[in-house]
């Protein structure tokens, strides 16, 4: 395949990934690496480099829209960033020594978990009970806008959330993904933040986490312009369009379609990892 043909096909696929990722709220980054490796037979390291770039693009591109709504908890975000950036740098170091077959299996497991999570509902919770002692020390409690005015909330499970974020950072670097699913899990389930605060703060953190390992991968030569640019532009265009048409789309069906795609990719990644074909 020529450079031009590859760029066109990769841009098209990335556009679809960005669009579905934005419409389902699962993020497009998770399918970029399987697409590049399984469909276009790109080396896993080049795929991870290109994918991280696209993760940063969607995270930063969506930031302005999220910030306007006023849900992001900056203190929670920056505090947990310590865990994700340290995790990302450790993950980047591990990526050089872990065999690609093991990474492929890990990717399959994370894809399956993402598909599973996409069918779990999330009731809007507000915890107003006593905060975790660390949350008090770190002044993490805040409030967020609701239909009934500003709603205060307290923050729980800080050490558990911090630990999960460390894992999210490692996975982000190892697999070239945003790890948004694990970040939301940490904040929504463990720290008991309201769901909207979790998702917007997660978006704030995804770009920073991805930038930590992307910087390292730039030096290692994982980021090649011919491959990274169609992924970045495709995912960005898809995500921006997705955010526009979100209000008119039937997200339930899209979620089922996207999850089906994710499960198929998970199976392929597991198979390739176990047979050592990647």
């Amino acid at each position, binding site marked *: 395949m020529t450079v031009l043909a590859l760029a066109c096909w990769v841009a098209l696929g990335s556009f679809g990934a960005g669009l579905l990722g934005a419409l389902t709220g699962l993020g497009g980054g998770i399918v970029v690496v399987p697409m590049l490796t399984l469909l276009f*037979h790109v080396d896993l390291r080049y795929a991870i480099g290109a994918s991280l770039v696209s993760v940063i693009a969607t995270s930063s591109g969506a930031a302005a829209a999220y910030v306007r709504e006023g849900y992001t908890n900056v203190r929670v975000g*920056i505090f947990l960033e310590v865990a994700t*950036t*340290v995790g990302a740098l450790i993950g980047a170091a591990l990526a050089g020594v872990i065999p690609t077959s093991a990474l492929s299996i890990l990717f399959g497991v994370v894809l399956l978990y993402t598909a599973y999570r996409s069918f779990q509902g999330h009731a809007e919770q507000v915890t107003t009970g006593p905060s975790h002692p660390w949350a008090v020390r770190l002044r993490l409690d805040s409030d967020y806008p609701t239909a009934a005015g500003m709603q205060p909330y307290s923050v729980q499970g800080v050490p558990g959330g911090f630990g999960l974020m460390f894992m999210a950072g490692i996975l982000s670097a190892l697999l070239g993904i945003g790890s948004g699913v694990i970040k939301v899990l940490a904040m929504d389930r463990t720290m008991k933040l309201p769901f909207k605060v979790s998702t917007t703060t997660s978006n704030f953190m995804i770009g920073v986490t991805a930038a930590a390992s992307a*910087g390292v991968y730039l030096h290692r030569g994982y980021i090649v*312009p011919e491959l990274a640019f169609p992924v970045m532009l495709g995912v960005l265009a898809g995500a921006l369009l997705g955010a526009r048409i979100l209000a008119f789309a039937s997200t339930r069906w899209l979620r089922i379609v996207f999850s089906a795609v994710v499960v198929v990719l998970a199976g392929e990644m597991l198979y390739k990892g176990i047979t050592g074909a990647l």
Partner: protein
Amino acid sequence: MSGTESEQATTESRWSDHRVEQIIGRLLQAGVLLAAAVVIAGALPLLAQHGADVADFRVFHAGSTMLQSVSGVVRGALARDSRAIVQLGLVLLIATPVARVALTLVAFVLQRDRLYIAITALVLALLLYGLLWGRA
């Protein structure tokens, strides 16, 4: 610190947190658009010059090129190398979250929030370490 004092502090910081975040959000969006513009400006000549070449990314080639460091990318882009211009756009994109953390640090400095100045400075140092030295 008494209850009312801490309540006042939270209210003030929330307001300035939110205002700062709005400004940062706008800057981030501008950063992404700038990065995309630079990438496109390099991608068009890149495809014109190398579009017909055979793309081979099946095997990873480790090696040191100018595209693997920030200074090398800048030098290449100044020399109008199309691949380096695309890479410069990608580096600008990687730098946008770093800029976000830097601006958040400025906000905490303005608020004289010592604890969060320290936390944010640590995150910024880790990011710059990865981006400029590239070791992990």
